[in-house]
């Protein structure tokens, strides 16, 4: 992929938790300006960790980038604190719709503008309500009482309030109804196209992610095992087998047969 014009570059980073557990073993990826990039992979493959390494939230969980570098718009950010990284313009929407339950919807959004000062609150709120009209009706409700879909919109809107230059989305589809997932992903595409906002999205739902993203990386146990343009990946045989499940079941080895011998085959390593 074209290395120039990327606003975010991860060069072979290693991440350790509690100084012992190695979670990422050399991950490199790039986000070109104005594009949507997806990171795919299984539970525990290190997708969320990658995002937290970028946004600096890792330090808060006693993790650290022990090797490699992260550059954002030409500046090293891997040693910086979460607060400085947010100020620089990278805002992460963390997994699991973490709203401030005891604040109202609008107060939640205002906290999002924390770093940008009072003057940006009004235009910011207008922009968020434009993209998420549903939030307008519930602006004075306590966030804790909102439904899952509303909370997902709220956390995305809250991130928008911080006027990000790069948005990191962690599992935006998790636990949402199919209809809502569609709505959320439409808005993600709109944000990218109208605002030219680059987005790095982590998803388990590979099919969905590959429809909105232009480029994707596949993570497996802390390593990038594959990357390519979204349409290339959609046609790739291994992706089909392991992420889209497109092979017919007859030819695949059954887990019942594995029982009494150990299969040593590893794919892509």
């Amino acid at each position, binding site marked *: 992929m074209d290395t120039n014009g990327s606003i975010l570059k991860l060069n072979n980073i290693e991440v350790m938790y509690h100084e*012992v*557990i190695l979670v990422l073993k050399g991950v490199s990826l790039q986000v070109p300006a104005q594009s949507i990039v997806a990171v795919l992979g*299984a*539970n*525990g*493959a290190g997708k969320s960790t990658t995002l937290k390494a970028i946004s600096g939230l890792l330090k808060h969980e006693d993790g650290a980038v022990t090797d490699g570098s992260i550059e954002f718009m030409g500046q090293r950010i891997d040693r910086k604190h979460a607060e400085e990284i947010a100020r620089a313009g990278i805002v992460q929407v963390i997994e699991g719709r973490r709203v401030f339950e005891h604040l109202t919807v609008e107060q939640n959004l205002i906290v999002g503008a924390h770093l940008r000062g009072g003057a940006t609150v009004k235009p910011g709120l207008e922009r968020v309500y434009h993209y998420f009209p549903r939030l307008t009706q519930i602006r004075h409700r306590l966030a804790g*009482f909102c*439904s*899952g879909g509303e909370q997902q919109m709220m956390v995305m809107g809250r991130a928008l309030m911080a006027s990000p230059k790069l948005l990191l989305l962690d599992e935006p589809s*998790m*636990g*949402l*109804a*199919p209809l809502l997932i569609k709505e959320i992903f439409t808005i993600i595409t709109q944000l990218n196209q109208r605002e030219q906002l680059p987005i790095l999205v982590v998803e*388990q*739902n*590979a*099919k*969905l992610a590959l429809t909105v993203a232009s480029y994707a990386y596949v993570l497996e*146990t802390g390593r990038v095992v594959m990357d390519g343009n979204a349409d290339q990946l959609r046609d790739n045989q291994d992706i089909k087998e*392991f*992420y*889209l*499940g*497109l092979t017919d*079941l007859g030819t*695949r080895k*059954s*887990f*019942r047969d*594995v*029982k*009494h011998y*150990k*299969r*040593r085959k*590893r*794919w892509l390593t």
Partner: protein
Amino acid sequence: MPDHDDGVQLQVQNVYMAFGGVGALKGIHLRVRQGEIFSIIGPNGAGKTVMLNCISGLYKPQRGKILFEGKDITSLRPYQRARLGFSRTFQKIELFRGMTVLDNIRLGRHLHLHANLWSGGLYFGRAEREEIANREFIEREIIDLLEITHIRNQVVGMLPYGLQKRVELARALALQPRLLILDEPMAGLTLEEVEDMARFILDVNEDPKWRVTCILVEHDMGVVMDISHQVAVLNFGEKIADGKPDEIQRDERVHHAYLGEKEDLYVTRR
């Protein structure tokens, strides 16, 4: 499904459960037969884990009943269900992280030991004999079966994720359960570890010495379809299908509810 009661070990009847007005389970019926592997699948947030928590007694359903071998257990506490032979593992590993593997497994044996405050405090004599017999059982039946001999004296918190999952299974088995509840045992494992885990589950299910009924919640469709005898599909708190794995794979409603297209059933796979 033909409605016959023979061999039914666990029955879930019309269980309803809501959190803060949002229905997590809306009238679920399940029938699990003695000795089978029963899988519950469905998208995230469908209520699978809530269902397991109701079965193992961590939540008390607001309506409906749960019967185990014909006996109403709806209002029994989890430890009382453990006495009946329930045992489980958790989605996010809930091991005792500061203890060794051996001590974790010893804890699983709690119900099979009898020391009390007095005999335990004096130790020498009854309690000591009991502890040593117990150690023999653990070494022979559990540690050997699950191939964790090499790590038995290590502190659990320091082990890699895959081994922790295995230790959790070991601890659940130490209870010598009759019903084993497994909440996403494959999540986060490498393919090889998944194969091992599937092998262990099949072992305890098929080995005449164990013959454990398993209730399995899992996202890995490959494993679910290969090893289960029965599969139930939950979606937004409702059961939308129930049957043999090949029936489920053909079921139009399952495809529809998951995402709308046939191939998407496997989107959640690993």
